[in-house]
């Protein structure tokens, strides 16, 4: 075989191996969730971010998985994603509409609200008929009561916020059946919580991962597989940009 033929063969073989590796990597990683960009919606150092938890994800190919949704600031619709971008050094006012039912925390320590303003969350409950009076809550005991459905936690920033759940058997058996659930709290009969809290984004830009600490991946080992380990469901990234 001539030298040019050898070189061509070597290059083709090398490229084939590289292509194979890339195909495997991208096939495993898969498409990443889209990022809800709140950068342009920050005013005077404050930005509002709204999320939702749902007991299923009927709009995905995993309809039985629990999931977070994030409101698109441009359209006002809830998109199936867990990635959002906010400015650095900015107060983020988060509202989470919690439509899922309760599940005990694997470690009760995550029942403590931490890393946010006053180490407390503002909680209202919609029982299907009326909204409760808002109250400040600092700790949930998910082992003693049906009180927590998920958490929103950014471990590297010390942030942990339990998402309260409907607290009766009847309410837990009447959860919303399609996702995203109706966005406007006043327009739905499905029981859910409305929690609000604030925290300040760090000055260091970058991607900060957030996750749920409730083992809500039913049917998976320790409840931590499936939606708990898949971007776009129960884990995501807060991208802090300059």
């Amino acid at each position, binding site marked *: 075989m001539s030298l040019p033929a050898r070189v061509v063969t070597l290059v083709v073989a090398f490229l084939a191996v590289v292509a194979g590796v890339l195909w495997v990597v991208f096939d495993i990683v898969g498409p990443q969730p889209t990022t809800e960009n709140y950068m342009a919606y920050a005013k005077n150092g404050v930005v509002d971010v709204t999320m939702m938890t749902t007991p299923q994800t009927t709009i995905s190919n995993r309809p039985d998985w629990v999931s977070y949704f994030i409101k698109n600031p441009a359209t006002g619709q809830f998109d199936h994603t867990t990635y959002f971008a906010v400015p650095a050094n900015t107060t983020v006012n988060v509202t989470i509409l919690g439509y899922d039912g309760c599940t005990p925390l694997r470690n*009760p320590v995550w*029942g*403590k609200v931490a890393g946010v303003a006053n180490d407390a969350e503002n909680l209202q409950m919609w029982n299907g008929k009326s909204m409760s009076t808002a109250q400040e809550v600092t700790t949930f005991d998910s*082992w003693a*009561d049906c009180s927590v459905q998920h958490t929103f936690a950014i471990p590297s920033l010390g942030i942990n916020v339990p998402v309260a759940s409907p607290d009766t058997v009847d309410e837990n058996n009447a959860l919303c059946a399609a996702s995203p659930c109706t966005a406007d709290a006043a327009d739905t009969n499905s029981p859910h919580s409305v929690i609000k809290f604030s925290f300040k984004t760090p000055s260091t830009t970058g991607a900060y991962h957030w996750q749920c600490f409730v083992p809500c991946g039913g*049917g998976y080992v*320790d*409840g931590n597989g499936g939606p708990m380990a898949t971007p776009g469901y129960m*884990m995501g990234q807060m991208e802090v940009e300059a």
Partner: protein
Amino acid sequence: MAADASAAPVVAGRSRDARLLLTLWIVLSVIADLLVGLVLGPHLPPGRASDQAASQQTDFTVLALLATPVVVGVLLYFGWALAFWRQQPGDETDAAPLHGNLRVQATWIIGTAAIVLSLAVYGTVELIAPAGAGAGQGPQPVFKNGMPAAASLTSWTPNSNNILQVQVIGQQWAWTYRYPQFGGFETTQLVLPVGQPVQFNVTSLDVIHSFWAYTLGVKADANPGVNNVAYATPTDTGYFQVRCAELCGIWHGSMYDTGQVMTDSDFMAWTQATKTKLADVTKILPPYALTYDPTTIPAGKVNQALGLTSAGGGYYNPADPEQP
């Protein structure tokens, strides 16, 4: 006759090369060992932030000092052979036949055996001396040299004959730390007093993690249902990194903390402040134990009515048409 006449210069050349190689090897080894011992050694990981880390750094330095002459010898011989013993252009003759050399073989075997066996003895002693050298020793630690007993699990004061207990709990994907001698509070912050022996009780609530307080020289697997004990005595105030050293899932790479070593008085103040701050969550934690089983919990009335009697993760009602 011709062969005999040519043999003398070859032997003389070998002797000269051997003397030169030996001289060069000794000189270069001494220089390299001085550089390793005085320049590289103090910068070898994991540093000297604890007695155990310092012991590890010393061990690495000793190993490097022993290995350096070997490396120098191999590279020198290799380079010498390439430079001076290579086939000359136009030389088609065979090299001199080899018939073995008992002296060289015996020297090599005895020398390497002596090095390996002495290192085995040295390594064993070094594992015993600094209480396991920071390694996880399982639930019944063997190497406790220099560590006081756990005289009390409900109180602790600096410089008492009572070792500080810190429970390290791994979970996907964060570390939490429990201090049983201060009311059993659990926090995401790892804070230690300087100069005080610490007993880490390492466990997990789900999969296998590995608690790696790198600069403290501590590394212990966190296994569910198992208490893995490791010891350390921090020697300097400041910060240190904690990482998970066992691939434990998608956010394994984010499972890190920054710990802090502070003075005794600052540590005591921190424990009191944290105990007060976390009082409301401490009272809902399970009683302090060396391991925990989240698959069985004393669930409340509504939880039980919903079939939620554990935090094991399998909560879907069998009648649920959307079972995973």
